[in-house]
């Protein structure tokens, strides 16, 4: 599998570390919404097909990436840097 880093260009999978599901939204640190926390920590879709994932280019520029990957074919349709502004969080 080859991931095309927006900075470094196409690189071998061996240079990247998987950092998990990028579809989750973390509750605000002050949130007491246990259902939301439970969903954030434990619930995963495990889709057969398109999936948004965090990866880190540990063996290159060391930036975190959001990769859209097809879990059935490993075809990668999109790679981007995560937004630099933190998304608005609920329950803060």
């Amino acid at each position, binding site marked *: 599998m080859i991931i095309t880093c927006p900075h470094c260009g196409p*690189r071998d999978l061996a240079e990247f570390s998987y950092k998990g599901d990028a579809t989750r939204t973390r509750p605000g640190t002050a949130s007491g919404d246990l259902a939301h926390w439970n969903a954030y920590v434990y619930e995963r879709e495990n889709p057969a097909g398109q999936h948004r994932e965090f990866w880190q280019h540990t*063996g*290159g520029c060391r930036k975190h990436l959001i990769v859209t990957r097809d879990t059935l074919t490993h075809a990668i349709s999109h790679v981007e840097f995560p937004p630099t502004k933190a998304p608005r969080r609920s329950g803060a």
Partner: protein
Amino acid sequence: MADRRSFVADPVIAAHAASPLQGLKRPGEFGALTDDGPGVFLTERTGLSIGEVASWKDSEGKCRVAIRAVAGVMLNVAPGSGTAKLEINVFNFAPGRWLVAGTKPDLVAQLAGSVGEDGSVTDLSHGRVVIRIDGPKSRWVLSKLFAINFANTAFARGQGLATMHHDITALVQRVGEDAFDIHVFRSFARSFWSLLRRSSEEVGYRID
């Protein structure tokens, strides 16, 4: 206001600097030499001051200007762009991060002064070893070690990048027609140097 002073180590004193490659770089010609001479030339670049400049979120442009003021070279905004001269090498190896290596003993202190609060400067002079591979077969040898396109058209002179060989992190800059500088952690230098020698045997190599 938080004190965000950069880290500047004691300058490298060329007369006292010890190479971690000591005992492994006996000059001579080795491997499968042909009548055309060595396929590659291996050298360690010594006495360098090496600094890493990292910008904050919105200060990339300011850091570029600060580096230019010290290094005297223009910096392009394109990812991986850089300049290689005899006395100074600069390249961008990650978004907002540059490696600057040169022969001036106070290079890193100058960078820290120039960058000021617009970024951070880390002195790597004592932590990195720079190995130069030159010669007609340099791309052939490097292609055995790294999954990188070293072709003349894909990897322009001055350009640099970060990659790794197994778990050995390496920064690579093209510094000449066939010449590449490889920056590795000092503690991995002996291992990497031996690997480079072994990989160069089939084309014949010379150590100067």
